[in-house]
């Protein structure tokens, strides 16, 4: 069996808790610490698009910084392509590159091409190849026309793409993406996700680890996912497996508002009592109801037939991803039990 490209085993990390002046003066050496990673173990296979899903403060960024060798763990082990990340951080930085999602990490007074040429040098690209590497990547990310403009004049989407190009200069085996669509508008975020899937994972063949708190994004992009909550890995598997672990059969049903009551009655007759209206109703007077519908396609077909037979016009009956908060809420008891 193929060795995993990334192997994380029992990772523990804590940070000092900021204290008040009074507490510091009373006990200068006695500082409390908060555990941000509590025995995290996971494996990522070569060529995989792996998602790390979790709310803010879950420990995603800390885990990424440990993988990128910027933070040293207290205990546990991290191996990237067989290299110990704690003992040999320099070697790890040759195979793994984090995409620093912060736009400020670009030099705004330099052009896009100049930014790339600088980092080509720092990644050890030979002098004669730097220009070519920068141009090729600018072409890949669709910034050739803006190559000689100062980065300060770029839009957020352009800067995000340039950040990716900068990371790709090193031809990394592993790319770490920490909430890359955080500052993008919905259209740019959608385009950017397509770019990640088709170009980075597809054509470039990178193994990608994506940290996000957007469950939709993770489910759309990732082959496998791990859910991190308060420093603990509460689940990992494919999107389908996670849905199974969480017992998730969440469906959305759209019906005319006038038929909402009738629809709920029919659903209740099938024992589906969790369905409730979503807060948003569209302009045409339709309402969306969301709830659990176990039993997969056969069960949903049966419900659809009952609704139509009962005189309810069904605009849509579709499986929808569980919101992150609900997913974690469902996974936690199972993780505790395990």
């Amino acid at each position, binding site marked *: 069996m193929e060795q995993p490209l990334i192997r994380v085993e029992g990772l523990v*990390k804590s*940070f*000092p808790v900021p204290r008040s002046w009074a507490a510091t003066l009373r006990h200068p050496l006695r500082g409390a610490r908060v555990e941000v990673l509590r025995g995290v173990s996971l494996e990522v296979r070569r060529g995989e698009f792996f998602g790390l899903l979790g709310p803010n403060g879950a420990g995603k960024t*800390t885990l990424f*910084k440990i993988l*990128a060798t*910027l*933070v*040293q763990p207290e205990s546990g082990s991290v191996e990237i392509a067989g290299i110990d990340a704690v003992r040999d951080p*320099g070697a790890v*930085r*040759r195979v793994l*590159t*984090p995409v*620093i999602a*912060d736009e*400020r*990490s*670009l*030099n705004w*007074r*330099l052009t896009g091409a*100049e930014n790339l*040429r*600088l*980092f080509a*040098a*720092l*990644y*050890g690209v030979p*002098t004669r190849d730097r220009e070519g590497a920068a141009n090729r990547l600018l072409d890949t990310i669709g910034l050739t026309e803006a190559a000689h403009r*100062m980065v300060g004049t770029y839009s957020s989407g352009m800067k995000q793409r340039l950040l990716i190009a*900068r990371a790709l200069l*090193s031809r990394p085996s592993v790319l770490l993406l920490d909430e890359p669509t955080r500052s993008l508008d919905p259209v740019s975020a959608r385009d950017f996700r397509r770019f990640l899937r088709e170009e980075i994972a597809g054509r470039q063949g990178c193994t990608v680890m994506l940290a996000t708190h957007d469950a939709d994004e993770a489910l759309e992009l990732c082959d496998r996912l791990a859910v991190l909550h308060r420093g603990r890995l509460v689940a990992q598997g494919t999107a389908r497996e996670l849905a199974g672990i969480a017992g998730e059969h969440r469906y959305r049903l759209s019906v005319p508002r006038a038929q909402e009551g009738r629809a709920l009655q029919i659903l209740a007759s099938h024992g589906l009592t969790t369905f409730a209206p979503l807060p948003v109703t569209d302009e045409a007077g339709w309402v969306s109801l969301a709830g659990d519908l176990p039993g997969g396609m056969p069960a949903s077909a049966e419900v659809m037939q009952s609704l139509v037979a009962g005189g309810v016009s069904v605009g849509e009956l579709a499986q929808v991803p569980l919101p992150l908060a609900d997913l974690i809420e469902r996974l936690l008891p199972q993780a505790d039990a395990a």
Partner: protein
Amino acid sequence: MSKILALVVAQWRVMVSYRTQTLLSFGGLLFTVVPLYFVAGALQPVMANAIRTEGGDAFGFLLVGTGVILVVTVALSAVPSALSSGIASGTFEALLSTPTSMPTLVTGMSAFPLVMAALRAAVLLAAGWTLGVSMALGQLPLALLILVVLVLAHFAIGLVSGAMVLAFRTAGPLSRLVLVASSLLGGVYYPTHVIPSWLQAVSAVLPLSYGLRALRRVLLQGAPFGAVSNDLLILLGETALLLLLGIATMSLAFRYARRQGTLAQY
């Protein structure tokens, strides 16, 4: 070396993108040289005797002092400033994520301001030369060597301040303290032997005292290596010690910040 050069070139491009600032940073030197010329002329009768072993010309004496303190100021602040601004702007984390060693990064990030300070000092000296300061141009290589050692000594102190920035996000008072002490007691505006005896103990530990005295003798009097070898040896010894201290504290601070998780944290 290629990585250091790339960092220097990038900073050069950033600097020239601020055109007015670049022009003023060199053009403004005129506002230093011209007043210095007139003040030195007025002080010449008073200073002549005190500075006779360092050229005897007040304008030359003050010009070299001013040029050197300009370079030394940057040498002291280059590392902590580069680290602080890199951390604040977010570029430091990106640089750390590349397979570039910490010494290379620190050197590359701080080399450009040093080169610029040296250029400004050269312009200052050239302006002084056109205004009549007599310089032993044949001794320029030795003068440059002394300047390089002086820069290294103060760069090493800057490393300690840089280590403070990495570990505690503040440069601390060390660089400022050394700068104040060097400006007042290092022989920049008056020779060190006129300082009250109880302050001469402080002057005697400052690298600038030895470096500046040697530099003036070489540049303004054409003194050979043998005539300044004592000052140069003391300066070299201090520089070696300071470099050891600077590298050790920087290395400790890097490991501490990596353990604490604050390496690139704003």
